[in-house]
């Protein structure tokens, strides 16, 4: 069942199920009511994106778009009036800049932090955890300032999608694999409430199955193996 996008062209999302970045894009597509074409064959991932060899890749009308945050902006621009869904990015330029800044900040800081927590020896892990806490402090403050339940205000927005990986994947990776906890509900109560939304699995009907997540046990298993694999090899 291939439904074509408003622009009349076929949409495909390529990527690996365990990658948070892929899900981020999938959620955006669902929010906009865009259906992917699952039937047609398309060029191998490497052919489409030989430069960075990254996932995810959004293929729209045969043209690839890469870098998940760039893809979110692309989706927002192409399907701007779609399904009555409000825009992902705020209209106000200042708020827009703020959302982009925070997404970039979390992206950069969490990359290093999760690497430290996940792969580094015990003593470096503490640094990684502290970094993650710093991120949560920033997000907690930001959420408190909003009118509505989301970073996007009363509806899910760009920043919600950008950091929406944290509740599940930090839950899987930290708690499931390493048995350490960072998303403290007492320290970060607002973030905790927000994260409940992203952990609905299956999601409440109200949210129309936008947020899909892989099964928790499967993800934990995957990351345990992944960690073993990369822990033993030199960095």
């Amino acid at each position, binding site marked *: 069942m291939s439904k074509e996008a408003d622009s009349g062209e076929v949409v495909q999302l390529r990527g690996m199920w365990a990658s948070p970045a892929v899900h981020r894009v999938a959620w955006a597509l669902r929010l906009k009511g865009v259906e992917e074409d699952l039937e047609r064959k398309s060029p191998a991932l490497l052919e489409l994106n030989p*430069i*960075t060899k990254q996932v995810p890749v959004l293929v*729209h009308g045969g*043209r690839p*778009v*890469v*870098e998940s*945050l*760039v*893809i979110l*902006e*692309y989706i927002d*621009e*192409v399907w701007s009036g779609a399904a009555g869904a409000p825009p992902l990015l705020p209209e*106000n*330029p*200042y708020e*827009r*800049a*703020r959302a*982009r*800044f*925070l997404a*970039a*900040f979390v992206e950069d800081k969490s990359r290093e932090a999760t690497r430290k927590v996940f792969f580094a020896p015990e003593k470096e892990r503490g640094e990684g955890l502290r970094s993650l806490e710093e991120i949560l402090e*920033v997000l907690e*403050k*930001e*959420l*408190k*300032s*909003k*009118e*509505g*339940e989301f970073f996007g205000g009363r509806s899910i927005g760009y920043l919600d999608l950008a950091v929406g990986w944290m509740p599940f994947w930090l839950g899987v990776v930290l708690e499931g694999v390493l048995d350490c906890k960072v998303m403290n509900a007492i320290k970060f109560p*607002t973030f905790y*409430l927000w994260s409940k939304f992203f952990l609905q699995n299956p999601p409440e009907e109200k949210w129309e199955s936008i947020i899909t997540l892989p099964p928790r046990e499967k993800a934990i298993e995957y990351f345990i193996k992944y960690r073993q694999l990369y822990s033993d090899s030199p960095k």
Partner: protein
Amino acid sequence: MRNALPSFSHFLWTSSIPESSHKNRAMAAGDELKLIGNWASSFVARPRIAFNLKGIQYEFLQEEFGKKSDLLLKSNPVHKKIPVLIHGGKPVCESLVIVEYIDQIWSSSGPSILPTDPYDRAVARFWAAYVDDKLTLQFRPFIREADEAAKAQAIEQMVAALQHLEEAFEKCSKGKSFFAGDSIGFVDIALGSLIGWLRAVEVLAGVKLFDEERIPGLAKWAERFCSSDAAMGIIPEPAELVEFSKALRDAFRSAALPSN
């Protein structure tokens, strides 16, 4: 979330103007404009070039090297980094985010920095992100103490990245002067802002990065970019940056600062 606490932006700027009057008012093109930065930073060069393109005046507040001013710390408590643009009292951070912001607010002045077509915009954003990902960190070994191996590896990464960017330039420019076509655009600014430091590395490491044989397109583009009105006076001379990097290394050595 109920607004029990003041909004985040209130923490950033202690002004006598009540919070409510700022909160929902969209910043207008005529509001007060300050840019915090310094002459040596490539990241700071980006919004400066964008302002030049748009013909916009702003107050440039230079940070004293080695110190972070109160204004900077208040405006960017999350990152504590330059550049920070303060527009009508509200801070905007992250060089490329600032450039997009400038393009949006002053959309009717000067050329468009980002293209209008969504796919072209995605391509431009990708390449700008690529520059940040692959190039900007490679200057570190030349600013901090680093062994020859680290420097050699950094050069290798830069050469490889520039090769990809050469191909990108061929595709994006379609025979015209800049990545964006006839006038300077987003990717031109993202990469062009680095030309000063790239040339400084050429001096420090004794290698040619803008090699006319390997990357002819970019070699000519770099000349064009630096002599453009928009970039005039903003890209520092290699000698100035070489001098600056020596001062930085001395400062790091003596103060043993944590890495930023």
